[in-house]
């Protein structure tokens, strides 16, 4: 009997520490830590109080709330705003489909997006930008997400199609936004009118989609046994990694024209996109090369022994393993690219940061509100990059489990 009781005592799992115990262990273990906590606690409390006080009562958010459309799409003609709406709905549909198919983090993103849409659609304030049409279209995107979810869940759409959809969105978006000359339905909108978060996302998404294959190509080029290809790739990668992005941006906006035929004219925004792409590709190339080096030679030999050609070996054996090994650093590079798109402000493109600056400079009254504007922009950038990095962590975790099986 006594033995049984002892066993029970022994087997009982460790209890989670009580609140007081937790405080003692984590805040007041030892003299030094206690003093530190006693000093830090009021400071942190005061700072938090000051921040809340300022955000809620002292800050005037007029410069932020007055121009939601300007922050979102810049000077894009308001009568053509439906084009942006269509692209947005397309993204929402894909988001819904991906949620239905893969769930996980995409579920959280889709639900959060839906919640934000719902909040904006039902926001009980009078605002010229938030008229009935806007509310209806925001609300209808909720249905689009749900429709996408059902498609993803119920139909057996191929995964490749969904991924292709995500890849096509940036290119299709650019075409729809730009329109065509002499078209009644889609008149041409010059890129000088584009701006805001739209341009930031376009540059980041376009840069990611284009720079990745270029980076993979450069990585293979550098490892190639063709001397010209390998030398060219090496010089290209090292030259671009050696200089700051702003140099590349200026090169593409000033000097590129000299190296192209005289009659060719490349749009300003496209040149910026090219610069961002080339810059990011050089960094991706080095990441991918690291992955390629990590694939054991035996894998290649085994594939050859099975009679696979070098193309098949590369695509089906080497590349998947290489990319998986370096996925975290590739995602890290994408986050860096997203943050780096802010530099286009310096060559005069009105991305999200640029719109903020022009709003501040448009009115002496707003100059006094620059704190609010910059804080708002910092928060938006922070949310986007934080989402990307937590997505990368989730994927890493998921892959870690996979590799253990």
């Amino acid at each position, binding site marked *: 009997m006594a033995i049984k009781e002892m066993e029970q005592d022994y087997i009982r799992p460790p209890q989670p520490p009580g609140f007081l115990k937790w405080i003692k262990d984590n*805040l007041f273990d030892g003299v030094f830590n206690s003093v530190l906590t006693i000093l*830090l606690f009021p400071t942190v409390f005061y700072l938090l109080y000051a921040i809340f006080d300022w955000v809620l009562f002292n800050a005037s958010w007029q410069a932020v709330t007055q121009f939601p459309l300007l922050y979102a799409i810049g000077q894009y003609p308001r009568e053509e705003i439906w084009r942006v709406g269509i692209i947005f709905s397309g993204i929402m549909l894909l988001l819904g489909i991906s949620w239905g198919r893969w769930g996980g983090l995409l579920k959280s993103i889709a639900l959060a997006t839906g919640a934000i849409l719902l909040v904006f659609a039902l926001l009980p304030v009078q605002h010229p930008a938030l008229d009935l049409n806007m509310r209806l279209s925001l609300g209808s995107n909720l249905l689009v997400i749900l429709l996408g979810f059902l498609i993803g869940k119920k139909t057996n759409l191929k995964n490749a199609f969904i991924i292709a959809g995500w890849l096509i969105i940036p290119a299709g978006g650019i075409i729809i936004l730009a329109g065509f000359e002499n078209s009644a339905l889609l008149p041409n909108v010059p890129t000088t009118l584009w701006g805001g978060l739209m341009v930031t996302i376009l540059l980041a998404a376009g840069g990611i989609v284009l720079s990745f294959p270029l980076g993979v190509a450069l990585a293979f080029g550098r490892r190639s046994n*063709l*001397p010209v290809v390998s030398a060219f790739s090496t010089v290209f990668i090292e030259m671009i990694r050696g200089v700051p992005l702003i*140099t590349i941006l200026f090169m593409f906006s000033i000097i590129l024209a000299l190296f192209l035929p005289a009659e060719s004219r490349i749009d300003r925004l496209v040149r910026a996109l090219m610069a961002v792409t080339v810059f990011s590709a050089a960094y991706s190339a080095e990441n991918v090369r690291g992955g390629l080096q990590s694939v054991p030679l035996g894998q290649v030999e085994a594939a050859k022994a099975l009679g696979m050609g070098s193309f098949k070996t590369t695509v089906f054996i080497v590349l998947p393993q290489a990319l998986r090994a370096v996925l975290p650093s590739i995602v890290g590079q994408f986050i860096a690219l997203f943050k780096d798109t802010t*530099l286009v402000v310096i060559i005069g493109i009105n991305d999200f*940061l640029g719109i903020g600056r022009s709003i501040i400079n448009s009115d002496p009254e707003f100059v006094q509100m620059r704190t609010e504007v910059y804080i708002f922009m910092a928060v938006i950038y922070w949310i986007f990059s934080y989402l990307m*990095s937590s997505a990368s962590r989730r994927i890493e975790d998921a892959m870690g489990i996979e590799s253990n099986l």
Partner: protein
Amino acid sequence: MPHPFYRWIDVMTDNQQQESQKTSIPFYRDERIIQIFAQVISAVLIIGLLILAVINFIQAADARNMTLTFGFLKEKAGFPISNPPIDYVPGMTFGRAFTAGLVNTLLISGVGIIAATIVGTLVALARLSSNWLLSRIALVFIEFHRNIPLLVLLFIWYFVVFGFVPPVSDTLQWPGPTYVNKRGVYLSWPRLTETGTPFVVLFLIGIFAAIIIFTVLRQRRKISGKDTYYLPISISILIISFIAGWILSGGTPFQIDSPFRDGFNFQGGLRLTPEFAGMFLSLSLYTAAFIAEVVRGGIQAVNRGQIEAARAVGLSQIQVLSLVIMPQALRIIIPPMISQYLNLTKNSSLALAIGFQEVFAVGKITINQAGRAVPVFALIMITYLSLSLLTSFILNIYNRRIQFVMR
């Protein structure tokens, strides 16, 4: 009599050999021929494109009457540089202006690297602290700076923080004395007096001697195993040279140069312009967040068993830190740390956005003024490339050294 299975294989290979003797590999599947073919095609493509670009470039340069030489560096530059680090006034040459920009780049990178390393290490230690509150504060610092673009951070420091600094008439006064107003930050700064030269010379000699004696004695200890007291000896050499220099220079090698009010302005002290201060703060805090992650990763990567084993052999806490943890952690920390330094140096080019004139900003004005885009860009690229090549050279030497130690 072999097993029937083997016989079957023999038959197979025999058949194949006979077949392969009959038909040779077609030329389009021959590895060697494909190889040569690919070489030629790729060479023609790449070199062709380059030649095309060069031809276009020469035509464009001709059409615009562009000069492609560096002769303009000797011409007069008409633009001012605010707060030049070396002697420069408008009317001096472009070369001089460029040098001033280069010195500004090196200056901001240098102080930025020192500050980022110190702050980053402190934040990493705070992140690893057993105090929950301190660790969270460090986490907030890291996540805040890592997820915001540097340019936004720079604008916040320059336009928001330094934008609300009061004008000269009601200057902020902090202990030190330190004065802060719209024109910049005025710090008290030790400056060398006229009799200070022997102090500097002696102290430099002392540092040099201390390093040599430290290495020699430590090497001897490593070989003989006897304690040669290398640390106390080299430290006392340092102290002796310091005191000797102090006495030789008459007791006042330095004097504190404090800023003072002179009418509507401040004189003396060390003046940091708002541009420099904003760039310095944003750049070093941004990089510090990345360095903190590097340092934390390095320290956490050291195997716990190593520390326990070192304690078990009887090493003291300091010895564990300096002989077991640091050598292993540094091996992991230093390569990414150096690439962070390089990033910081390259990121200093963002100073263009707020008008701090480092090498890129000077280059940009030169392009506008002199209209010589290509040579100026070549100059800028050469500058940054040589910095990064130098860095990777150092990194390679370091990697080779630690690899040697590992084996």
